[in-house]
Structure formats: structure tokens, C-alpha cells
């Protein structure tokens, strides 16, 4: 599904990722952990195709194709989904409308007929229930005056509706109360599927107690410092990142 080979990425000339190797197979859930500034979000963005990041070395293959050659929207239509750490507000655009154009962009890409508003609504309703979200949220402007929890749930809702092949969840758990965390975890677990791969980017182990990953990787200073099974996350919780990376805490925080 996803093969990352010796990936080096720089932002404004400064190297952030320094040789990442990672293979994710269909059906697998991988957790990427690490302190602030370790390059986790950069990895998420580079996979989703955000501008401003320069690949200086290495390659990323997605389903055998050169992922880095595709524009962000092409990746999305080909089944790559990024759940944002900070979901973006779009005033005046109804949440359901964004879902509709997103679904239809992917369907057009696959040569399938577009869905009308009613079809979309029927699809979205069942997922709303899963995420414990009120239908009124569909008619509010995208993420505008959503609470932190509503925004994160909304990201997972979009994932559930868009049914991607590769989902990258960038700190889907940050800033959530326990109920919202459970709803988000429920949404993610419901999307685990033999045909779908997921990458969970997170600081903490608490999400990983609810969504048990197949593999855990610790990112430090732009490299994968360690990889292991779920038990690695538990170890981190006891020792902190310093125990693994050989340093106390992280570097300066990057947004």
C-alpha cells in the first residue's frame, strides 16, 4: 500500500526528515509517536501533498505509484486521506456541501456517476450516529464555531464517508475529553478494514489503548528511532521519549 524509502524532507532549507523508511500494508494500523518537533506532522503533510515541503532524497510509493508526483487533490481522489490536527474553518460553506463535493470529486475520478444531495445525506446519516454527532452539524459552516471535540469528530466523519484506502490521522486525539476520545476511537475502529491502511500520528498512548495498532514507530530528530509492537507504546508511557531517543524531552515545538 505505502512504501517510504530513505525519505529526506526540508522546510525552508532546514532538514526535518532525515531518512525515513516505512512500509504499511493494507489492513494495518501504524502509530507514529514522538516528541514535539520530531517531524511527525511533516511526515503527515508530505504524504498528503502540502506545499512548502521539499523532498531532497528518497521516494514514496502508494499502490506502486510515485505518490510524490501527484498533486494533493489527486492523492485525495486516489484514496489518501489526512485528518487534520487543526481542522480548518470555511465560513459560509455548509459541512454537508464540502462532503458532497469531496465525495463526487472521488467518484468522478473513478468514473462513477455523481451522487445527489439526497444520496449523500443518506450515506452521512449512519456515520453521524457512529460518531455521536448531531445532524445539525451538517448544515453549519465547515468547522466554524465548532468545539474542539466537534472538529475532531468531524474529521473522522469525513474519513468514514470518504472511505479512503490510506488514512493519515494527525493527532486525532489531541484536546479531546474522554467522551470525544471514545467517539473518535470508535470511528477509527469502525473504519479498520483489510483493504484500508491507517497511520495514527500521536503524542500519547491513550488513543492507542482504544485503537490498538499493529506497529508502533518512534520518530526522533527526523529518523525512526525505534519500531515495535503495541508494547512499545506502553514502554514509552513509562520512560518518556528521552529513554528511547537518548535525550530529555523534545526539541523546540513545531506547529
Amino acid at each position, binding site marked *: 500500500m505505502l512504501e517510504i524509502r530513505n525519505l529526506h524532507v526540508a522546510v525552508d532549507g532546514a532538514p526535518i526528515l532525515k531518512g525515513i523508511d516505512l512500509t504499511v500494508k493494507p489492513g494495518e494500523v501504524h502509530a507514529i509517536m514522538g516528541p514535539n518537533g520530531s517531524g511527525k506532522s511533516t511526515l503527515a503533510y508530505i504524504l498528503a501533498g502540502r506545499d512548502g515541503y521539499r523532498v531532497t532524497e528518497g521516494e514514496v510509493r502508494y499502490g506502486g505509484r510515485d505518490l510524490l508526483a501527484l498533486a494533493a487533490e489527486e492523492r485525495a481522489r486516489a484514496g489518501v486521506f489526512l485528518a487534520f490536527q487543526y481542522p480548518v474553518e*470555511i465560513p459560509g460553506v455548509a459541512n454537508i456541501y464540502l462532503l458532497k463535493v469531496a465525495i463526487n470529486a472521488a467518484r468522478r475520478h473513478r468514473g462513477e456517476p455523481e451522487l445527489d444531495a439526497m444520496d449523500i445525506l443518506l450515506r452521512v446519516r449512519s456515520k453521524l450516529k457512529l460518531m455521536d454527532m448531531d445532524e445539525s452539524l451538517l448544515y453549519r459552516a465547515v468547522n466554524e464555531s465548532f468545539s474542539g471535540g466537534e472538529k475532531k469528530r468531524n474529521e473522522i466523519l469525513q474519513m468514514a464517508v470518504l472511505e479512503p484506502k490510506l488514512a493519515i490521522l494527525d493527532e486525532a486525539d489531541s484536546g479531546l475529553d474522554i467522551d470525544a476520545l471514545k467517539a473518535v476511537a470508535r470511528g477509527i475502529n469502525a473504519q479498520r478494514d483489510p483493504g484500508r491502511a491507517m497511520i495514527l500520528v500521536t503524542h500519547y498512548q491513550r488513543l492507542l489503548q482504544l485503537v490498538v495498532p499493529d506497529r508502533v514507530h518512534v520518530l526522533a530528530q527526523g529518523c525512526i528511532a525505534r519500531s515495535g509492537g503495541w508494547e512499545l507504546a506502553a514502554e514509552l508511557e513509562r520512560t518518556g521519549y528521552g529513554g528511547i531517543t537518548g535525550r530529555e524531552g523534545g526539541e523546540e515545538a513545531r506547529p
Partner: protein
Amino acid sequence: MATETLKLDELIARGYEHGFYTPVEVDTVPSGLNEAVIRLISAKKQEPEFMLEWRLKAFRHWLGMTEPAWSTVRYPAIDYQAISYYAAPKSRAGGPRSLEEVDPELLRTYEKLGVPLEEREILAGVAVDAVFDSISVATTFKDKLAELGIIFCSFSEAVREHPDLVRQYLGSVVPHTDNFFAALNSAVFSDGSFCYIPPGVRCPMELSTYFRINARNTGQFERTLIVADRGAYVSYLEGCTAPMRDEHQLHAAVVELVALEGAQIRYATVQNWYPGDKEGKGGIYNFVTKRGDCREANSHISWTQVETGSAITWKYPSVILQGDNAVGEFHSVALTNNYQQADTGTKMIHLGRNTRSTIVSKGIAAGHGKNVYRGLVRVGKSAAGARNYTRCDSLLLGDKCAAHTFPYIEVKNPSGRVEHEASTSRIGEDQLFYCQSRGLSAEDAVSMIVNGFCREVFKELPMEFAVEAQKLLGVSLEGSVG
């Protein structure tokens, strides 16, 4: 950020869709302006004496006026003697009596613009008073409207057929002395639309006019007068496009609205005149005076405008709230791309008691566009209990454009309440990326974000116009923002 700007620039760099020129024989008066030209225009239009006198009065006043320089728009000096002040498509004597008599070339032009008159008659239920260059070509639905006592015709026809009404109301909202461009228009106006809704009548259809500038070097001086008598209601749509041209063209229209007791007038504009090319060459100069008069109690006038065209837009649709409890509204979307300049806004003049006004302005600037909101809210001494709410939002696309807001507020009655809110934002790289990561192209993303930004205004437009406006915004932004 650099890549974003590049992307925006590419998107904005789209050609003008309606850029074509129709070869039609044109009857044109030689360029230049003097009393003889005004007499000639008046004579060609077979106007009664009072109309000629009014034109001459305006012309003599105009001679003593200077072009206003207080706005932010910048343009090379206009040579008023180099402009031809009258052009009418040539036709068999007396003008067409029906669509069959209309020059087929003209009809094809309308079809290119998506205004097939014949179909419109049946499908849309819209009576179109189409203006090609300066004279009306065809008027539809007239009979149906006539049954209700509604007069909807070209201005020239109104001058001939309803001189008393014209005489009573012409210049009563925008006097011939009002401003430089209004005075010029009063002297040389070519044609336009006239509409009168009798007492208690609710106009059963949206009335609309399509304007178009076509003949080379011909300034357009439209004059529109709409009178809603006591308790009447009318909704009026004005939309325009113009073909691709090289020289700047001057357009100085005047629109006057009069609402008597309990009457309501809704006036909506979608303006898409040629904005000039990517380097800012060509494009229409649009200096318009639009004003409504809520002359009696409980009257209501609302302006809704979507301004995407013209090289220069200088336009302040206003409402004078004379009658007690009168309501004035202004909803505006103004978009400037490439080197377009817009200095637009409104004036709400509160004179009557408990008068209310609402202003919602959405300015969008892309490319090197300059977008200015300029608005006056005045609460006079007599306007006890007057209230105004103003909201001005600006959206910037790219880093070479500019948006400014100049609110003028004058309150002379202590019970007046005036609120003003303003915001400036830009389409962020994060918004674009968010949409793209959901599968939208940069262009579709920008279009969606901008339309979202304008939603408050679009919902004031009649349904089919709103759809048109959304498409227009998308087209106008192509190559501008992702």
C-alpha cells in the same frame, strides 16, 4: 506562500468569456459634446421640448463642474470630446415592432450571452427590456404587465408615451446637478428603462434588463427610473456583459428609485463588463449614480449588487430614508482581479423616524486588484430612533491586491443607533490545502471558499440570479486563487 501566489496568479489568468464583437451597422453621432449634439440626440429620439430643456440645463451645469477626485480609483484623464454620445443599431424606420423585426445579428449576440429572448419569454417568466448599445431592441411581456397597469418600457418610449410621469419623477432623486457623472448622464442619456407600478399592485414577475456595450468608442449613458406607487411591490434585475475591447469605455449610468407609502422596490445587479486584460489594458470605466428614495412612510428599498466586471467601478447605490419607518438595505459583492479597481459602497441617509438600514459588503481582491468599501451612514436631527447595522468583510487572494474600508458615520440625533463591523481575511494556504486534501482542485476550492464568503449576499438574490452570480464569481476568479 510563494507557491500559493503563483497558483493564484495562474488561476486568475483566464480570458474574458464574453469577449466577442458583433458586426452591426451602427448609426453614430460624431464624437464631441456641445449643445448641438444634445439637440441632435433629443431630435433623433423625437423628444418633447421639456426633455430637451432638461438636457440642456444639465449640460450647462456640467460645464462648470470638475471630475471628482476623492475616490481611490486612478485612470488616465478622460477626453470627453473624444467620445461619441449616441449610437443606435440601424433598423428600418421607426424601430422593430416585434422580435422578427430585430436584427438577427443582435439576437445571436444575446444567445451567446445566454439571453435567448424567445425562450426567456416562455421559460423564465422574466420580462426582458434588452438594451443593445443605447436603444431598446425588444420588450416582452408588456401586454401582461399592462393589464395590471404596470408600465415597463424603454426610457425613450416613456418620454413619448408617459411624459407626465417622467416629468414628475425624473431627477427627483438624482438631480441633474448631483455630481459630475450624473450631470453628464442627464445631458446625454441615450436610453434605459422606465417602470411604474400603480398603487397596490404587486408586480407578478421579476423585471430585468440586459445591458451591453458594443459600438466602438461609444460611451453608454443609461437612465433608469422606477416608481413604486403606494403599496406597490417590484423586483428588478439588471445584468450586463460586454464584448472584448481595447480602449477604455466610459459608462455613466443613473438609476433612480422612488418608493411611495408602503411600497417596496428590490433592485439587483449582476455586473460583468469587460474588466480589461491581465495587464490592465482595456476595460470599462463604470461611474454610476444609483439612488433610491423612500419618500413616504413604511417604504422599503433594497439594493443587491454583484460587481465582478469593469476596469473601474465607482458606484454607491444609496437610500434616502425620508418616510417614517422606512427600510433601506444594501448587499454587495465586489470582486477585483488583475488591475481592476473598485471604489464602491452605499449611503444611508436617515431622515424619518424609526428608519432602519442594513449594509452588508463583501469585497474580494485578487491579482493586483484594489477594492474599496466607502459608505456613509447619516442620521439626521429628525430621525429619532433610527438604526443602522453595517458589516464590511474583505477577502484577499494573493499578496499583490489591496482592500480598504472607509466608513463615514454622522449621527445628529441622540437616539440613533449605528453599528459597524469590519473584517479582513485572506484565503489561507491552509484553507486551500484542506479543500485539496478532500479532492477539490485549487480552482474549485477558491470558488467554493469565495462563494461561502459571499453567501449572505447571494441569498438576497432571486434564485436563478444567485446561481448565475456563483458561476460568474468562479469564472471571474479563474487564474486568481486556488
